């Protein structure tokens, strides 16, 4: 039930979208989902190693997040909170998958082209705030100014966070590749 004229969701900040979604404006929540669905699936995939399962986990995590939006003290901190929810749901799913009869899943079972697992793992190992800016930069093609507007951060914070995230990602990948 949408009762208040809302700002155009596509360009609204995460915090504004969370506030609108709390009032039941599902279109605002849908925008949040579109914005971060890839990141949620990537994070879930890093745990469950199955593409279909990762999408189920991401969907479940979004629904849990919607249910509990009222408990989110800082609406701007939606993404770290969402990613923690994704990991929690994914861990339970991984436990369930491990109990399944048959061979353990490895990779994604050939249903989709194999992703670059080491890159997804490395992204998943970064702090949530870094994952968020990397995702907005790489997957959404946002500039630093746009990321700042969406996240509510200062542009200077975004540039330093993005720079640092890229450096950490390279370091993690080079460490990964240097392992025997």
């Amino acid at each position, binding site marked *: 039930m949408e*009762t208040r004229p809302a700002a155009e969701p596509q360009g609204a900040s995460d915090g504004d979208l969370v506030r609108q979604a709390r009032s039941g404006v*599902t279109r605002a929540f*849908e925008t949040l*989902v579109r914005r971060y669905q*890839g990141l949620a699936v*990537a994070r879930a995939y890093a745990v469950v190693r199955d593409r279909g399962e990762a999408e189920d986990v991401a969907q479940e995590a979004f629904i849990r997040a919607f249910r509990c939006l*009222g408990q989110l003290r800082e609406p701007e901190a939606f993404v770290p909170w969402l990613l923690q929810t994704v990991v929690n749901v994914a861990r339970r799913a991984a436990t369930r998958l491990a109990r399944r009869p048959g061979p353990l899943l490895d990779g994604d079972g050939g249903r989709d082209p194999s992703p670059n697992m080491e890159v997804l793992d490395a992204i998943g190992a970064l702090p949530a705030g870094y994952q968020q800016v990397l995702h907005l930069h*790489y*997957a959404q093609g946002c500039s630093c100014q746009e990321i700042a507007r969406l996240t509510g951060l200062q542009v200077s914070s975004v540039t330093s966070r*993005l720079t640092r995230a890229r450096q950490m990602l390279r370091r993690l990948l080079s460490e990964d590749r240097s392992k025997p």
Partner: protein
Amino acid sequence: MNCEWVTDHIDAYELGLLEGDERAGLEAHLASCQACRGLLETVRATDRAARAALAWAEPSGDFAAGVAARARGLIRRRLVAWAGVAAAAVAAVLLAALLLGKPRREDAPQASAPPPASVPAAALPEPAAGLLVGEARDAYGLPARGIVQGRSYVAAAHAVVRVADSSVLLLAGGSEFASLAPDAAQGAAMSVLAGTVVGQVGSRGEDVAIELAPELGGAIVRTRGCEFYSAGFPAHRLAARLAFPAGSLARWPEDIRLHVFSGKLELGLGAQRLVLLPGDSAIISGGACAGTTRSARARAAELRAILGDELLARRDLYDRLCGDYARRLVELRSAVGRGGVSYHQERTELVTWLLESHSAALERMEANDPELAELDAIEAELRRLELLDEEAHRALEGLVMQIASAG
């Protein structure tokens, strides 16, 4: 410009954040340095890999629509559940409403539900979104809005909605709510159509409503005919943490600072019963209160009478002397530390002895008259309460100014 500088700035370069001389310098270095060209290639390869991995993770177009559909289903189920609960359980008449935010224009109170007689309808200013809207029967003539039955409202910020004589719902900002058709036997009921119920003040015990007023940096606490301002109370924390167990504030995680402008408030704090009269302030910490302004003043006067002026004067003198000796000692020790002469050493020993003997005398005095310690505690509390009185009055003036300017 060397390799180290290039390593530090290669990401800024790739992000298009380098300009002018820096950009030109970096490009000149790249042209002459094979190692840095290798680094640039690594940076670009990582970019490509990260972009590809995240693009792969992006689900198909109907993923978000599917999640949104499930979310809408949740809202519908919540609405049905709330309507049922509200109709069955919430009793009595819908009292003068507390509403934060502006009702939609088409939902504004109409002739069938006139505002209370104390505030003429024409005099009601149209409040700005998020502005605190006062209670109808407020002694200060604050503007008011009645909640019209069957209409829906959106709380622009946290809101407290009184649904019955002693039942109050705290709604998170953005929650949509409406009054339902009254049950013949039980009176009006409330339904939260969408949004979050932060807490509920119980239907037994104290009749207390907490109205969150983030724009004031605090909360207005109301009960019948009374208004209290809890200054400096972070309203969002109030909303986030508390569910207000009926009749008890004992587990409240923060100091609750109350000031009563009019009327009388009675609060039960476990075995302690707190009565605040107009002009009183109180600070409740961990569910207990050292006293209201009035009771603290009365107890302090009582203790002073018990102890007597002579004892208090002597204690004040000793207290002051101890303070003086302590300050002097610090100065002397500092002089000795800087290589002072033996004169300083001797003075230091003398002042140390004086300080110790006066301190011992003070301790004996306080051991013999434990009321002295109680008086100290009460007077410290009184100082906090007097500061709170001032804050509350400043806050009320601000509130009135805000409402006047909105009108």
